[in-house]
């Protein structure tokens, strides 16, 4: 796949919740409560409803996720193509950074 440059979205203090939400949506659409429980199960830390929707609104504004038709007043969200690519790039950057840190700690097994 051809690599395209996307500006890293400035999400300020919502950057981390936004990343967690994007990861949660990476295996398929989810509504708000499912995202919350998924994030809590994955990280062990709670994500409050206010934080969740502040981050969702920003992600939607930037076109990284899109809302689907509501089902029983629950509205699922899914990753857009750009959202998927931005997530891939961010995770790759994080992996490189983590590898660098581990290498410096002398814990990389080769």
């Amino acid at each position, binding site marked *: 796949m051809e690599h395209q440059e996307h500006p890293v979205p400035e999400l300020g203090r919502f950057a981390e919740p936004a990343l967690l939400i994007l990861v949660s949506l990476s295996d398929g659409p989810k509504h708000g*409560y499912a995202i*919350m429980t998924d994030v809590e199960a994955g990280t062990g830390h709670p994500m*409050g*409803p206010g934080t969740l929707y502040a981050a969702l609104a920003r992600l939607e504004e*930037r076109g990284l996720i899109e809302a689907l038709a*509501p089902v029983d007043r*629950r509205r699922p969200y899914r990753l857009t193509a750009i959202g998927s690519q931005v997530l891939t790039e961010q995770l790759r950057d994080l992996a490189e950074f983590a590898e660098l840190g581990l290498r410096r700690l002398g814990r990389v097994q080769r």
Partner: protein
Amino acid sequence: MRHLLLRVYPARWRARYGDEFETLLGERPLGPFDVADVLLGALDAHLHLRGLGAALEDRKGFPMTHRIGGYAAILGSLLWIVGLVASSLDGSDSAWPWLPLGLVGTALLLVAVIGLSAFQARRYPRLTWAACAVTAAGAAVAVVGLFGMVVTGDEPFFGLSGWSLWALGSLAMFGGSGLYAIATWRTHTLSRGAAALLGIASVAIVPAMMGVVGGPEQLAIAFFLIALAAFAGGWTTLGLSALRSQRPASSSVPGVAS
């Protein structure tokens, strides 16, 4: 409880996310953490939706400073020019009420230059803060001079007459405004017309002051009037453009249904 928490959010936000958010709040019992998180989320939604579209995202750190600076610039320039002109035309020896009016106007201009300079400092930090420092120092000296005129009249104040302090401070304000005009013109975040007016004021004040120290009087008066009008007009226009920049880029906020 859920309904009450939802009401804390702005109406436009509720129109888009209200139903699903209320459903989410009903999915499980709300603890103190959740309530605090929702209240902070509501505060964020108010700040985020208040004229902040994607087009204004870059300016998000300064809306309040900018708004205060805008109002201070408009009110300050008007009070400053009214106080100055009226005290010149008033034949009585009394300093009231025109000099206090000028004092308040100058203090407001000090607030304006600090508030509006903070916005521009991102692009040209040294130039903007130099302009801010010179104008602010001038405004402070002018305020002291005006205060001296109000309290002691023509008696010396800090070794100089109140009028001399005011004139020195005002000269520095004009000079600082000239630097600020360059910063404004180059940054292009506020009105370039205002920048041009402030530039004219800072240039015209030089021959005007030369007239005070012995140059041709009629010419000096003409330059003085030009400098005053351009200075007051420049700050007023700058304030108006600062307030205009607070408006949303369009009637709709991206991602939020109207």
